[in-house]
């Protein structure tokens, strides 16, 4: 222990005396370790950190296996499965979710409200921080005006009031009693963001037995806790046996699924993220390997320059183990300092990329430093220390003590030089791979940005607006008894249009490249009864007048909606060019009739315009057929009124930077509808950039990695050649003394660099050729083996390498022969 402390003290002194080496080694290690810790922090949060429940690996999600998307089991079905599972099985359900805007002593807060049955929270095993959970009778109709708060809501909105239980809060004019507060970090559903509250779902007794029909209720998520000793597969078997009987008792026309899927809840949340995260892990591992190669090379050179010291220690009685210990302590110190700096670097990188990470990965609320990340940091530090220290230490310990003492062969042996050159070649090769990857993704982003979007991106602010907040039909919901189009949306439009600087404001249920859900509808064209597969299916939208002006979408034919289109005028619709091409090819769509329903005003909706195609959810996908209905013509009882209740989006074109309108938009909205909530208020340009999704994140990451790799490889090459020059000072001095011109000396050094770079680029190009194939699924607008990218990268790397070699070569050419040849 004492000897380790002495070695540590000596190592610190040594590092202080070599600031150039120390800074370089620490910086390179910090970047290599930092990238890995950043990646591990993300992976830990998404893949490893257990969910905040008791025995979270026993919580499973239960779904019906159905060919119809979004088919969910009814509550009655769930209860029957629970009974089939026996007395040891606990099940619970989340039956509804909505956003709400609530006010408390801490101000106004937008929260996610989840309606749950009384079994769900107890099933998770988590006790509330304050108060109690729901009782079974509190899901009876009229008795479900209670709420549990998330700890962050309690802290932010109610200022951690210890007497909160029993107080009330108001949601859309309805008073709820606060029963208690759930512990910090508790969330259900998990990964839906912060600020959650829970209330008991209203479950009428008839819904507990109704398998289908209007009285049945459909939870959006069903969960179970695996009984002791049971696996998900075993539970699935039990459920499948029961479900086949249950399905046989449901009317045939309902096509009730007879099979059930049971998945670990955490697995179900992160399954799509696993492949990209493992890919990321592979990439950062490559960066770390590069960093280790580089620092090992530096340590080798340093070890050679300290041969005499090692020989003296050996002559004075230091055993080989003792010398190894000293080397390892020094490399551990370097690695430790690099790791601490790397931790800071890693967390900074996560902060920098947070917007992209949050948009493209699930469970991001769980991404933060915990004991696993610290343990990984410690482990990585130790492994790095061993890797960078062991080879140089072993190499030097094999040298002959007497020869080193007497000054013989205190230079690098041929094999040591070969080792270092191999390390530099490996660094150059890896760097080329990273640079090619970065180049391909940068070109992808460039190509994506060139895709014509069909609308204008300038100065348009967009945002989602939720007035009703409920995704379920609720006869008691006052918003479903009044015409919110007339009472809220149209007045909102008027107020928005009156904001100074606003040129046009419009509403639409779907805006281009925003991720909110759209609705597919099927109707009839010109009252023609056609087979189902030929029926005109299209994405149905509601829109107000002004939409085309707000988004700058050209009209191909006819007109868009105007103020003259009202609830009492004939129903009009507008289609897009994709609809016209597909369902009315070669015809003028104007005047054709689109029918929804067998009777009523919407049975004879006339097409009055054809709107230009715009990109919808993704810039790379072809535009699908769309049909627009005029918002002003929608009222309770008409088709698509449910969309208006659920969700609308605002588009505001301004003469001033759209970003500056955020606060005014929020103010106007809450003046018109105090309980309204908003989602993703951002400019349309931001929406476009966000739609590039994971490609942009990958591009940013690869840019960073490529820059790192380039820097590390350049430092490696520079270090190798500098060392070689130092080692050959006498030889160079002699050559100059014998008449060698400067160009000859430059050539001596540069020629060696040229060979290394050529070998490194060749190997790297071959590796990149294969690696590019892996990326081909992610790139767009550029081939995986794009000649321009490969050529440009080779040129960049060659130029940087030349610069790294030039400085030592110049130093060699400037050697003073008198100084160089002076004997000791």
């Amino acid at each position, binding site marked *: 222990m*004492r*000897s380790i402390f*002495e070695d540590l003290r*000596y190592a610190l*002194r*040594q590092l202080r*005396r070599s600031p150039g080496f120390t800074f370089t080694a620490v910086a390179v290690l910090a970047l290599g370790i930092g990238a890995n810790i950043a990646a591990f922090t993300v992976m830990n949060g998404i893949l490893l950190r257990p969910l905040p429940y008791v025995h979270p690996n026993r919580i499973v999600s239960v779904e019906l296996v159905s060919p119809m998307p979004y088919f969910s089991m009814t509550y009655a079905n769930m209860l029957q499965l629970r009974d089939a599972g026996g007395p040891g099985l606990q099940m619970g359900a989340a039956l509804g979710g909505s956003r709400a805007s609530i006010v408390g002593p801490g101000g106004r807060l937008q929260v996610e409200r989840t309606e749950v049955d009384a079994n769900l929270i107890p099933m998770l095993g988590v006790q509330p921080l304050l108060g109690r959970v729901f009782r079974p009778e509190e899901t009876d109709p009229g008795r479900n005006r209670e709420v549990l708060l998330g700890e962050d809501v309690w802290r932010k909105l109610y200022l951690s009031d210890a007497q909160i239980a029993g107080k009330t809060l108001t949601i859309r004019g309805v008073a709820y009693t606060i029963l208690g507060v759930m512990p910090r970090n508790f969330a259900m559903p998990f990964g839906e963001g912060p600020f959650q509250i829970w209330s008991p779902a209203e479950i009428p007794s008839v819904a507990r037995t109704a398998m289908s029909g209007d009285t049945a209720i459909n939870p959006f998520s069903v969960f179970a806790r695996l009984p002791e000793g049971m696996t998900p597969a075993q539970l699935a078997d039990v459920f499948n046996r029961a479900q086949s009987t249950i399905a046989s008792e449901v009317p045939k026309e309902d096509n009730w699924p007879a099979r059930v899927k049971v998945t670990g809840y955490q697995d179900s949340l992160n399954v799509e993220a696993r492949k990209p995260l493992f890919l990321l892990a592979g990439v950062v591992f490559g960066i770390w390997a590069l960093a280790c190669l580089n620092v090992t090379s530096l340590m080798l050179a340093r070890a050679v320059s300290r041969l*005499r*010291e090692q*020989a*003296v*220690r050996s*002559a*004075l*009685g*230091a*055993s080989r183990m*003792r010398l190894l210990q000293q080397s390892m302590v020094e490399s551990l110190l370097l690695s430790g300092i690099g790791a601490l700096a790397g931790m800071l670097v890693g967390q900074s990188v996560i902060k920098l990329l947070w917007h992209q990470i949050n948009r493209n990965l699930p469970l991001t609320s769980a991404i933060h430093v915990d004991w696993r990340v610290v343990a990984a940091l410690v482990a990585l530090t130790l492994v790095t220390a061993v890797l960078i220290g062991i080879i140089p230490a072993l190499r030097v310990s094999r040298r002959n*003590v*007497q020869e080193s*003492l*007497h*000054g013989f062969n205190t230079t690098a042996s041929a094999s040591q030089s070969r080792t270092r050159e191999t390390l530099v070649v490996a660094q150059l090769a890896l760097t080329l791979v990273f640079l090619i990857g970065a180049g391909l993704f940068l070109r992808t982003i460039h190509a994506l940005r060139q895709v014509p979007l069909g609308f204008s991106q300038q100065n348009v602010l967009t945002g989602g607006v939720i007035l009703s907040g409920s995704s379920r039909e609720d006869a008691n919901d006052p918003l479903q008894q009044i015409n919110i189009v007339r009472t809220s949306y149209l007045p909102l439009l008027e107020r928005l249009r009156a904001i100074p600087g606003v040129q046009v404001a419009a509403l639409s249920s779907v805006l281009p490249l925003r991720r909110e859900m759209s609705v597919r509808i099927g109707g009839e064209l010109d009252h023609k009864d056609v087979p189902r597969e030929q029926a005109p299916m299209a994405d149905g939208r509601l829109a107000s007048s002004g939409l085309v002006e707000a988004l700058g979408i050209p009209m191909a034919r006819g007109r868009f909606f105007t103020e003259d289109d009202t609830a009492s005028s004939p129903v009009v619709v507008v289609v897009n060019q994709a609809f016209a091409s597909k369902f009315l090819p070669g015809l003028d769509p104007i005047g054709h009739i689109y029918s929804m329903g067998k009777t009523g005003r919407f049975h004879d909706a006339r097409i009055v315009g054809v709107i230009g195609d715009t990109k919808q959810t993704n810039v790379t996908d072809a535009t699908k057929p769309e049909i627009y209905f005029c918002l002003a013509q929608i009222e309770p009882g008409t088709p698509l009124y449910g969309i208006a209740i659920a969700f609308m989006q605002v588009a505001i074109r301004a003469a001033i930077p759209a970003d500056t309108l955020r606060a005014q938009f929020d103010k106007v909205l809450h003046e018109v509808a105090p309980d309204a909530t908003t989602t993703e208020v951002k400019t349309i340009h931001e929406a476009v950039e966000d739609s590039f999704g994971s490609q942009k994140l990958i591009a940013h990451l690869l840019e960073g990695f490529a820059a790192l790799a380039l820097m590390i490889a350049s430092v490696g090459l520079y270090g190798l050649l500098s060392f070689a020059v130092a080692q050959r000072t006498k030889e160079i001095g002699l050559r100059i003394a014998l008449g060698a011109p400067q160009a000859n000396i430059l050539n001596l050094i540069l020629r060696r660099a040229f060979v290394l770079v050529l070998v490194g680029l060749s190997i790297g190009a071959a590796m990149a050729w294969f690696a590019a194939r892996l990326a081909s699924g992610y790139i767009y607008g550029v081939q995986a083996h794009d000649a321009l990218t490969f050529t440009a990268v080779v040129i960049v790397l060659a130029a940087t390498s030349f610069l790294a070699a030039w400085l030592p070569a110049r130093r060699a050419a400037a050697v003073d022969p008198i100084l160089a040849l002076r004997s*000791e």
Partner: protein
Amino acid sequence: MIELKNIERSYKTGHTETWVLRQIRLTINEGEFVTVMGPSGAGKSSLLNVLALLDDSWLGEYWFGNTPAHKLNRKQRADLARQRIGMVFQSYHLLDDLTVAENIDLPLSYKNLPAKERQGMVADILDRFQIVAKKDLYPNQLSGGQQQLVGIARAVVHAPALLLADEPTGNLHSTQAREIMELFCQLNRAGTTIVQVTHSEENAKYGKRILELRDGWLTRDEAVEPRTTEVGAQ
């Protein structure tokens, strides 16, 4: 104390074998001050390396006291050298990043001694060599003579039975050289067995016995009248 029987050492380079020590038979008694002389390439340093147990590639028998060094493995030889032998080098071989005190402490740090005991031993030596004031200086802050003094202090701090010196005054001017040789005499009088390699006839007079090597053979082994002058260490 030391007995060498038919010690031989050769170096192979390609197909050629060069003998640097040929059938060396030698006995050195405790308390002797022996000088090894000879022309360049005679095998002086090679003999010293064998005596120091730095070299493993020799043939023959080497008895250190009652210990057959020729039968020991590398680790055992290193242990023996660490305990019983001290070495002084022509180029001092002080570590530039250690202070005078730390350089002297270095061989002690490779033994399992309590820290207090080590500190005490270093303090004793600093005092004995009258370099206490310089204990926190670095080698580059000392003159050549002072550096060699520190080198000798380092070599004797653990009270070795045998002190080996390879051209200890080779890099010093005459005044410094004289002081160093006087110091060796003091150490010898105190009981340390000393073997020095030197080209200097002057230095040889400080010893009691001269061994001469030529082409690896021991060609002369005779006693010398010791000098009587005393000069204190500086």
